[in-house]
């Protein structure tokens, strides 16, 4: 990954419900993003953005918008994650509607529709100009496409999906602690297993060859006085057999079922409010784990997948991290967080190479909810809950 004077190319308007996920589709100029209403749009970006001057010096908009070309129709509740095969032929989405959907975004469209992606701007204008008709005025005409396949197997929110780099296997996890490994070619389950009762599978990742699975569990508060619980384990992805309990390795004295807050604090420094995103390095040696929830640290933890040893903490998103990915060469780890930044750090020494975006000032100012890296690694994108998708070119 070549990082040299990164430049913000686009800020794609995606207002209304929060953008929650983003993925490149085989190219740095084609990407998909989804939101908390379950809408997925696909953008075909021009090679170069037009000249752009911000309206105001401190405006959040610092790069031009481009409208999407297509809407993918099918989800009935928020999309939590998007991933795409390297060739961009297949997009996979996980949703709070309990489904995983597969899309072929390069196939012919099935129809057209009007889409309003500037809902917030319209509200402001309608209020300013006292014209309600602004809210319902026609938006952008987009192609529509239904999903090719819906993978059924989850009965609760599907919070996470991950895939091997060869795209042959997919792993998914839900809020009822169920994990499923799928054969992508045959669209069938290979194996399923369950985490601890009441836990949620908040993050799951597969190694590049799809043979090893990393699963992070976390239980959101049921009361101040219920047993705090989490798990972080490595599995054989073909059989679902546990290979390593990382938390047990890291905290051997911590007994399962321990109820004291003193003990909870031991692992809370590592777990924060759950390790909500995970990735496995291309060589399979390291796991990158993002401390999520609303937490002060928001560190990215790098852990050896074979031994469970904590190698180092890198970066840090004040108020919590939201997503993490390794670069294809395994030399960098990219993360987004509740500090509205996308941070890129070196794996070897943890040094931060760049922070894209900037904290918006004050406490709790929006999040960047997800990060995507283009297949050629020239471009990165981040979904912003303020209603945008930011696209940066890394070398200029």
């Amino acid at each position, binding site marked *: 990954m070549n990082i040299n004077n990164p430049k913000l190319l686009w800020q794609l308007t995606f207002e209304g419900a929060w953008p929650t996920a983003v993925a490149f589709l085989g190219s740095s100029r084609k990407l998909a993003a989804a939101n908390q209403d379950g809408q997925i749009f696909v953008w075909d970006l021009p090679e170069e953005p037009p000249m752009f001057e911000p309206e105001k010096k401190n405006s959040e908009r610092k790069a031009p918008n481009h409208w999407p070309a297509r809407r993918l129709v099918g989800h009935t509740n928020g999309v939590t994650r998007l991933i795409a095969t390297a060739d961009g032929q297949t997009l996979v989405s996980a949703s709070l509607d309990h489904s995983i959907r597969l899309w072929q975004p390069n196939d012919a469209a099935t129809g057209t529709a009007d889409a309003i992606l500037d809902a917030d701007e319209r509200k402001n204008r309608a209020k300013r100009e006292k014209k309600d008709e602004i809210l319902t005025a026609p938006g952008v005409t987009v192609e529509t496409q239904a999903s090719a396949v819906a993978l059924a197997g989850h009965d609760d929110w599907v919070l996470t999906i991950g895939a091997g780099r060869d795209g042959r296997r997919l792993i998914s996890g839900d809020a009822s602690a169920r994990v499923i490994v799928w054969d992508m070619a045959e669209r069938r389950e290979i194996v399923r297993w369950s985490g601890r009762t009441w836990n949620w599978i908040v993050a799951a990742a597969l190694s590049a060859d799809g043979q090893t699975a990393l699963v992070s569990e976390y239980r959101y508060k049921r*009361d*101040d006085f219920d047993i705090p619980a989490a798990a972080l384990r490595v599995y054989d992805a073909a059989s679902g057999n546990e290979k390593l309990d990382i938390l047990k390795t890291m905290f051997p004295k911590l007994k399962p079922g321990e109820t*004291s807050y003193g003990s909870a604090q031991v692992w809370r420094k590592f777990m924060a409010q759950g390790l909500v995103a995970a990735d496995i390095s291309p060589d399979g040696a390291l796991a990158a784990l993002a401390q999520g929830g609303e937490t002060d640290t928001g560190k990215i933890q790098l852990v050896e997948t074979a031994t469970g040893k904590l190698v180092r903490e890198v970066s840090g998103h004040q108020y919590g991290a939201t997503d993490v990915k390794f670069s294809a060469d395994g030399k960098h780890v990219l993360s987004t967080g509740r500090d509205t930044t996308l941070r890129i750090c070196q794996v070897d020494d943890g040094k931060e190479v760049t922070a894209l975006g900037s904290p918006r000032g004050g406490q*709790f100012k929006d999040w960047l909810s997800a990060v995507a890296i283009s297949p050629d690694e020239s471009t990165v994108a981040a979904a912003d809950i303020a209603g945008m998708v930011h696209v940066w070119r890394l070398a200029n």
Partner: protein
Amino acid sequence: MNPLCNRAEHVSRRALLKGVLGTAAGGVVMNWGGLTQTALGDEVKKQQKHCIYLFMNGGASQFETFDMKVGRPTGGVFRPISTNVAGTQICELMPKMAQQMDKIAVIRSMKTSEVDHPGGIYLMHTGYRPSANVRFPEFGSVVAKYQGREATALPNFIKIFGHGDAGSGFLGPKYQPFEISPEGQLPQFSGSNLSPEKELRRHELRNFLEERYAQENPSELARMHRESYEAARRLQGARQAFKVDAEWEKYKGLYGDSAFGRRCLLARCLVEAGVPFIEIGQSSYDSHADNFSWHKGLVPPMEHAWAGLMTDLTDRGLFDKTLIVWAGEIGRTPNINNRAGRDHYVRCWSAALAGCGIKGGQMYGASDENGVEVKDNPVSEGDFFATIYKALSIDPTTQNFAGVRPIPLAPFGSKVVGDLVS
């Protein structure tokens, strides 16, 4: 905070008695008017009614429980499910309560006057806003006074991880809540580490000295001191009522394997043992951030326990005599903030009642399409408590006295919501 002990457990016996004596003086003077109403109290006590307050500390969201706004900008990510009452839907997080909707009445039009936690907690425990001049009693104390029994081994007002801090106010220390830990353990001061023989000898000596003192110095304060000590001694013989390990193994499935479930089981056991008022708390609803994750964590164990409690009470023939009150101190905002949270809101929120003659299967009142304002039948805190007292056969206009000032149980002008009570 250490979950194994709370503030009450750190109160020494000496400190407790000191506190009891200190407040007793005020209580006796202030509550003299209440002494004139023993006839009413006796009549009410014959009803043998109970109340269990399920208190959602921090303020549970109405949008994620009983008043969903699906498809609206304020709606959030959860979906509605049908209930056993035709045409009525509640949040998908409450599948077990959905099958008990015919037994509960939801008020979707709560409109209260304290938007922050301390004031809201006071309000939703007393029916009154905090005042510098009057120490209003929690309604548990009121129920203890009018439905409680004299000289019982068990306290008449028990809190299991309760959150109200108003106490018995001007009703005096006799009706002060007895607080036990979140896990249902008795406070340290409730037990004696003396052998029974030594304890008895010490008791007899103390009794002798107190009687002699009382003969020469007749005082209400001294009498209340003796009564408090006697109540503490009686509790020694009733400690078994708080031991529910065996019951828990049997009923864990019904109540759900959670701390809140165990508290609900203990409440049922205490109702069976004759305790008129029990408050059970569940914490952490103050979801300014990650509201949806938090409610998805908090609501399922709560509703499982609540549904189990209703089933258990019904099976034991206690449901018709036990009022279940479900409420927090505030509701949550229609607007979803940029922390995925909802903030405090009291202009329109939800609470629920069940049992003890409450007409179940109804959604009383209504919010507007976004849940911003009450559309129909607003219910104030006063109306809410007046209705509760009515269900418990206690006249909400009954007056006690703070000094010479008459104070009705529910604030002046409060109305019983007649549609809710049979």
